[in-house]
């Protein structure tokens, strides 16, 4: 008798659908975050969300709700710090402080809710195979809201990310836009963490996006490439984890590095070494 296929189980169908949704988000928001040099924020947001989820577990709310609320609060305060060109160190300091404070609160919440310690593992490492219909519905809503927000902010966000001096001279506020963008990024991080876990969800945001940026593509093509890369990682990881019995985040994180190395190899033959040096110097 032959083994049942991947798609015969409803939980696998849900997992593939969930991976598709978060790939849309992780790929697009991750590309924008890397473009804006906010990789540290991409790392911090899901960890901050983890604390919110821990608080939600303690207070008997759904973890995703706590994760979204805490990520958004973190994103809001991180965005309050000036996003301008002159203050990258200040911005990272604020991100680091918020991250440290939220992890401390998260540990306290988990301590208070120690009867639900199995949920801690789920929050940290994700539970893609445990996605049910209502959670998928919530994820779809988050994805739709985030993508609509990105579409609305697209022009000013790209303008201020690529040409901050000109954008400010035209009256755009880097602080306000940065704040709005980090709120969207927080939503995206919370959604991605549901699949890949708080510890590794940023690999889904950063891995494919870094490869897409390395390929020197225009913004539209870069985001398409990043989303496809995220889809390849999440679906590919799902299939590999099914056959290998190794957790999905392992495949996603290593796959992200693999994608970046592949992009480096592709670009190495494209430019003369002097030009490559010049890009790296910049």
């Amino acid at each position, binding site marked *: 008798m032959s083994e049942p296929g991947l798609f015969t189980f409803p939980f696998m169908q849900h997992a593939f659908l969930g991976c598709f949704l978060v790939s849309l988000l992780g790929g697009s928001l991750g590309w924008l975050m890397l*473009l804006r*040099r906010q990789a540290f924020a991409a790392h911090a947001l899901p960890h901050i969300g983890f604390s919110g989820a821990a608080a939600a577990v303690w207070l008997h709310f759904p973890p995703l709700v706590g994760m979204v609320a805490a990520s958004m609060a973190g994103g809001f305060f991180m965005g309050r710090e000036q996003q301008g*060109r002159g203050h990258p160190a200040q911005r990272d300091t604020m991100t680091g402080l918020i991250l440290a404070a939220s992890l401390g609160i998260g540990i306290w919440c988990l301590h208070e809710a120690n009867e639900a310690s199995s949920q801690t593992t789920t929050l940290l490492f994700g539970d893609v195979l445990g996605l049910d219909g209502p959670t998928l519905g919530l994820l779809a809503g988050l994805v739709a809201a985030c993508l609509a927000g990105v*579409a*609305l*902010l*697209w*022009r*000013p966000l*790209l*303008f*201020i*990310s*690529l*040409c*901050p*001096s*000109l*954008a*400010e*001279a*035209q*009256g*755009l506020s880097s602080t306000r836009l940065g704040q709005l963008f980090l709120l969207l990024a927080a939503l995206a991080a919370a959604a991605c963490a549901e699949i890949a876990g708080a510890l590794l969800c940023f690999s889904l945001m950063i891995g494919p996006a870094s490869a897409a*940026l*390395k390929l*020197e*593509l*225009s*913004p*539209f093509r*870069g985001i398409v490439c990043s989303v496809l890369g995220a889809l390849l990682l999440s679906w590919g990881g799902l299939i590999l984890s099914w056959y290998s019995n190794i957790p999905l985040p392992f495949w996603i994180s290593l796959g992200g590095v693999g994608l970046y190395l592949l992009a480096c190899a592709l670009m190495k033959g494209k*430019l003369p070494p002097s*030009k490559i040096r*010049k*890009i790296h110097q*910049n």
Partner: protein
Amino acid sequence: MKGAYLSCRGVSLQVGRHSILHHATLDLPLEGLTILRGHNGAGKTCFLRALMGLLPLRSGQLLINGRPPVKARQHCGYMPQKADDTAPMLPVISHVMACLKGTHWGIPLPNRTRQKAKALLEETGALSLAGKPLGVLSGGERQRVALAQTLANAPDLLILDEPFAALDPKSHEALLQLFARLHQRNGTNLLITAHGPLKTKNLPLPIREITLKEGTLHV
């Protein structure tokens, strides 16, 4: 031809403890090319930033074409001394496209925006650079791209901070010719800062020099 003038009424501008302008009052036509001179640290960049509404005045009123800077800047193009280099890996055309109606909400129509960006690059003689990553350009090439970005909102007045910095003499002349072409074709007026001598003698546009010295603008 579009007119342009600058009006200062008791303007004081200060950055930290450094006084840039001290109760300056003057009316200055900005027709053609106006060159702002002054030694290093005189405050030329700060003055230009104040004109764009990026630096608040300590007192007084500054008007460009009768409007305060925050309203007039929609009709001004600003090129900073050091061009933005935040995403050197993206192609030049994307950097110019981002400046076209960049303050509007939503997603632009890509084909139309691309055509406009190409037209701007052609105007500044940088069309051949459209597909290159920004990070591999030379100083002169980067300057031409920056000028194309500055022209994106079809400004009446171009405010350029040290546009000749890091350019060789041949590129100086080419850039001056480009300024003259912009003025003749589009009626664009220019206010620039410069240090060294410029070969402006045969340029077909009105030229005026002003100097910022010890908190006063000398016309």
